[in-house]
């Protein structure tokens, strides 16, 4: 079980969070077209390694926490607010 350091609440158990997926995708401009929106909704990289993700602190402060997490070791390198730019380790 992950221990996620919520920027508002401090380190909290994974059970309080809802995983909300890839935080590297950006919603396209309204006129970007079907293909751009299709990629935004459906196309994912599924990396083995560091990944920037949304974890919704649903049973806490209700904020979407940005988390840099290693998909193989589950190590967490950084957490931040939704608008923060987080540093992703090299490997």
């Amino acid at each position, binding site marked *: 079980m992950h221990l996620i350091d919520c920027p508002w609440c401090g380190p909290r158990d994974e059970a309080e969070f*809802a995983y909300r997926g890839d935080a590297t995708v950006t919603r396209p401009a309204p006129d970007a077209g079907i293909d751009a929106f299709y990629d935004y*909704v459906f196309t994912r990289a599924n990396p083995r390694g560091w990944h920037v993700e949304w974890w919704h602190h649903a049973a806490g402060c209700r904020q979407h926490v940005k988390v840099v997490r290693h998909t193989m070791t589950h190590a967490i390198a950084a957490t931040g607010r*939704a608008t923060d730019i987080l540093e992703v380790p090299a490997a």
Partner: protein
Amino acid sequence: MTGRAFRIAGGGHIDRSRTVRFRFDGKEHSGHPGDTLASALLAAGVRLVGRSFKYHRPRGIYSAGPEEPNALVEIGTGARRTPNTRMTTAEIHDGLVAESQNRWPSLRFDAMAATSVAARLLPAGFYYKTFMWPASFWEKVYEPMIRRAAGLGRAATEPDPDHYEAAHAHCDVLVVGAGAAGLAAARAAGEAGARVLLAEQDFLLGGGLLLEPAHEAWRGETLAAIIALPNVTVMPRTTVFGYYDHNMLGALERVTDHLATAPDHVPRQRSWTIRAREVVLATGADERLVAFPDNDRPGVMLAGAARAYVARFGVVPGRRVVLFTNNDAAYATADTLLAAGADSATIVDFRPFGTAAAAARARGIEVLPGSEVIGVDGGTSLYAVQVRRRGTWGSTQVPADLLCVSGGYSPAVHLASQARTPLAWDARIAAFVPGEAARQRSAGGARGVFGIGAAAHDGAAAGRAAAIATGCRVGSEFVLPGRNGDADPTVMPCWEIAAPGKAFVDLQNDVTAADIRLARQEGYEHIEHAKRYTTHTMATDQGKIGGLVGAAVLAEARGLPVEQVGIPTYRPYVTPVTWGAVAAHHVGKAFAPIRRTMLHDWHVRNGADFMEAGLWLRPGFYPQKGESPWDSVLREARAVRRAVGICDVSTLGKIDVQGKDAGVFLDRLYMNTFSTLAIGKARYGIMLREDGMVFDDGTTTRLAEDHFFVTTTTANAARVMEHMDLYAQTVWPDLDVQYCSVTDQWASMSIAGPKARSTVARAVAGLDLSNEGLPFMGVADATVAGCPVRVFRISFSGELAYEIATPAGYALAVWEAVLAAGRADGIVPYGVEALGLLRIEKGHVAGSELNGHTTARDLGLDRMAKKRGDFVGRVLAERPGLVDPGRPTFVGIRSVDPKRQVRQGAHLVEPGSFKSLGWVSSVTRSVELGDAWIGLALLTDGKARIGSRLVAAFPLKDEAVEVEIVSPHFIDPENARVRA
């Protein structure tokens, strides 16, 4: 039975002054406090305790701890019967009842073993090949047969009468295991000032120290020092079973299993979730078996276990002893047994003659160096061992009633392996030891540091290092046992003795060395594949004593060193955990909370029949004396159509949205436009998912320029909030908008029917209810019986209707005031069932239609989409597949024979055809159409088929009902009633 007692006069950790009485297979036995079921039965002379899983071979007690593969029993009776309990860890208590497992008709004579039926049924890989064909045979023939032949204990069939508890703990340092290493680690970390948890699966603390009278004083002194530390918590009878991410570990505490009578209000077991900053794994090591023919017979036992029965429990498990070893450490077993009164001991040493053998001979013990055991003589007990000089043919028979086996020790790396700690091969002990890991270290036997003195020193260093890693300063120094008494742990690898016969590598799952070779031959040569093909190490003991032996057999077959083949990754649970403890208090009604509306008690008093809607309890209908459910539903709905009814709709999700950009935010979330909505007006809205499917619907009201009140469906209330969170925080963080769920803050009730205005007018003060004063979709504040209310002129039933919302605390006062006001109009409370009937007649969509597979176009709601501007789902709703005119669209159906029921989920087909043209999403009996069965459906070319007939087929019940396709709006398509 010789008549001589197996229990010796003194020594060990049992209380001979007290007697405990228990039953095994119907026979009464006695033991002492401090005994396990295994030690008490050995003391009673019992050697045969079970039958094996597949072959029903007779089995005895093999170990003295949680690694036990054989001695599994059912403990307790009736609802408390617990199967597969290890005798070697079960403490006895007065009145304990145990039964052996997997034997029929009796333990001594087993029909399955006699006929060898199971052996033919269950070769290695039987999951994969034996029962492939024909498919129908699986359920009817094979499975029942296997279930009879193979298996372990029987689970209780009654509900569990005990209760279990879940608990959380946090600490600086968790020490797992309280042997020499664990005790030293806990003391070192504790005296350094760390908050320490010390978890020990045994009921006594000490591990290997319990077998060492010479170290008893140190054990006592160390325990006293630990208990005196306020920052150290000692948890006996607590097995750490799982090591999860971020140093979270799971543990099971057996609170009352050892008690004859459990005190009231104490859980039977407690499941702990522990977060530790640092972990010290002092889990010791498991002795290994050697795969020789019939190595599973009663009378064969691990050498360390035999020593434990003498030294800890004061029981001599055999009189004429043969010890088969590849290491020095096991020699102590022969000495211990002889000192306890065994008649003879012969040591069969796999290695050439060495110093240990010389010393043993000097003590008068017979040693056969360079020799091996190639079989045993005996059935349900042992009378001789076949010994062969290595590299020769033929064998000598050595009389024996106990064969002690030691293939060396494997560090108990289960928890380290679960935490994905890399394992390294240690050739000296021929076993894997854990490597480096973050925030975790192994100590003592768990990392191959064997011997009391060495383990204690290693544990103290690990405890100190762990405490320092949490920010503590170096603590005290304390006396540790010397390393001088420790035996040399070096082994000469000895995995399998080549000789004819069944040589087991997994006793619990009946896996032989030959099975491993068969798996390899059939292509399952990776260790993880061989494991699954043979079920090797998949039993409840997880192959603690034979796992590496099986890997070595596989390695030999593949021509590789065993360290290259490796062992399968361990997974939770290290030992079995009661399912009740996992569930803890999350059972029955406590599994999920129940949500009740503010009017719940009124509904109860007025005879409501409740239904569940998510977590909510809602009145389904209010049956009167003698009414069937349908009688009640139809009466309530009729009252709404003809007079007036009142319904508790408080469960609808309610979200208060405020801020300068609130209107823009809602414009982007809904396909409608809300920023143009006039203050004091409501509008029905549709929300899509980003993939273009309909997500939710509801009315939204504008209360002020920057203030909206959104309602959602009951089912989607939480999901809509999450959806808002996602978009507000991550997609449009620049918008000035705040919102909050107010579902529980407002109670609301719908008053519907042609006489609704008359009723509401009598109830409400300060409001003009005329069409000019409060038109359809108008909203205004007022009071009812002095309570503040907000009146919405909105309708779900299709009738003239008002929804009155009031702060939750006023709910009952307002509800009763409206009821009183409506008495003259014949007001009737109606439930969710009537509400459903009314909305189907009106052709309103609900959960069955908004099922995540439908588009706004499918439902005929696309005209509500704004022409310009962005909203969630706008782009992907235009995907070719979603705008395909061939998609099923929203229609109504009515049964041609009005009395014939149409079922929800029925497929619509042409008569005689099997091609589904669509499906029935909702059905009801109708009050407007003379009780006829009607429904809503999604149908290909729906509009074009209106007026035609199809068949609603429901093959599950072998039903085919002729239906007419009609408009989904069964009543008032012009909306005249709601605007009346």
